[in-house]
């Protein structure tokens, strides 16, 4: 089964609970934390890659706990109007989510390969890459 990438958002009220521990233990999921920014009493975010038979049950558990769950592809978006297809992001993007199609040399963005490292936000000269909240 292909791993599913998700983004979790924790409110300040639940950021100190052992939610990932319960997710792994109670739903027997293999969890790979790609990115985490969780601090006590603050809003936190986490990017996970999860595999297992009980993914749906796990997601319901997270929602019951008040965690917002989103598919990862919703997170980084490209403003197609703004993008000038220069290609400057394509040798920086660590996963190849931003790449040049050849021979047209058009820049493509494959959200499935994006790990939301946000490097493209910083280096895009026209600021065409955005985090969608």
């Amino acid at each position: 089964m292909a791993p599913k990438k998700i983004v979790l958002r924790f409110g300040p009220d639940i950021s100190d609970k052992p939610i990932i521990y319960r997710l792994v233990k109670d739903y027997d999921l293999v969890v790979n934390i790609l990115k985490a920014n969780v601090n006590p009493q603050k809003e936190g975010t986490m990017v996970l890659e999860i595999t297992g038979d009980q993914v749906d049950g796990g997601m319901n558990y997270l929602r019951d706990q008040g965690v917002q769950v989103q598919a990862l592809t919703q997170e980084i978006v490209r403003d197609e109007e703004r993008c000038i297809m220069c290609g400057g992001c394509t040798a920086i993007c660590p996963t190849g989510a931003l790449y040049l199609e050849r021979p047209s040399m058009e820049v493509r963005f494959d959200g499935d390969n994006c790990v939301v490292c946000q490097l493209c936000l910083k280096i895009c000269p026209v600021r065409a890459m955005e985090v969608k909240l």
Partner: protein
Amino acid sequence: MEKSYAEINAKIKTGKAVVLTADDFVSLAEEKGLAAAARQVDVVTTGTFAPMCSSGAFLNLGHPAPRMKMQKVWLNGVPAYSGIAAVDVYIGATEVPEDDPLNSNYPGEFRYGGGHVIEDLVARRPVRLKATSYGTDCYPRRELETTITIDDINEAFLFNPRNAYQNYNCAVNLGSRTIYTYMGMLKPNLGNAHYSTSGQLSPLLKDPHFRTVGIGTRIFLGGGVGYVAWHGTQHFPSIQKSPDGKTLGPAGGTLAVIGDLKQMSPRWLKGISFVGYGASFAVGIGIPIPILDEEIALYAAASDRELYAPVVDYSEAYPSRTPGNMGYVSYAELKSGRIKVNGKEVPAAPLSSYPKAREIAGILKQWIEQGRFLLTEPVQLLPSPADGISGKALKG
């Protein structure tokens, strides 16, 4: 086979001119042979859409009542040069607001600068104008704050002193830390390579000896019509040679271009930001090359395999102004996305938009085919490699 500007223009006017983009001309010459391609085609259109820092616009803001000298001027908080006549200013593409943190929190973001102001103007968005001055008997007003659009002011023309670089370095980083340059973010230990021309579509790579591009050449500029005003600053045209004497295409020429900003489009003029470096401006330029004879056709038919960029280290060699380079790579290799530097395979990426360059060459082709755009014979040709101009180093 020789053609004159007048003959080509007569064909354009009657809709009979054969116009090809440089991409298509390269293919045609490979397929049919150079002589046949030269006979068949009247005009080859080129294009480039890339960061061109040495750009800016002259604006005449008009006088308020009472009149004002406008000694200092800011547009959306970005200072414009006003050391010329009253209410004339020049907004330069790389200027940033005085309160910009610059690189104090390295690498700085440089989110907004003069290029963005010009983009806002050409997009017909309102722009905040602030001016201060000492008072004079003829210009008594000392302060002004208002909002303008491009349609509210008298003149707005782009005048870019150094655009359309004939060729440019392929930038790499031999150092051990990430660096932030006008060639983008360069990862340490040859982590990536950035280049910035459109190769076989790029205007001046197709006219290495400046046989057709000269003062008065009518061009596509920022989505409208512009003209070559002069050779650009740092115009040092030359023909690159490998150590064994092989010709590796031209380098070093630049153009100063001018055009009415009011008829241009924000699609082809974009404010840009280079993290850790500064604000800049992406400009779309397309230049028609009249195929006057077979020699001009030969140059216009040069393919990505015959045009080369020098590889330059931006961690040490470039900033210290060490002459030389680390060898040459062809645009065909660069466009493949992988080049070899010091025996290591390095991912290569452009900063110059090839799809947009192709689109510009296509638009210019269409304008000419529709008879809307006639070619101009240069009033004067520009210095060529034969003139042997080279850069001076500043003492200090």
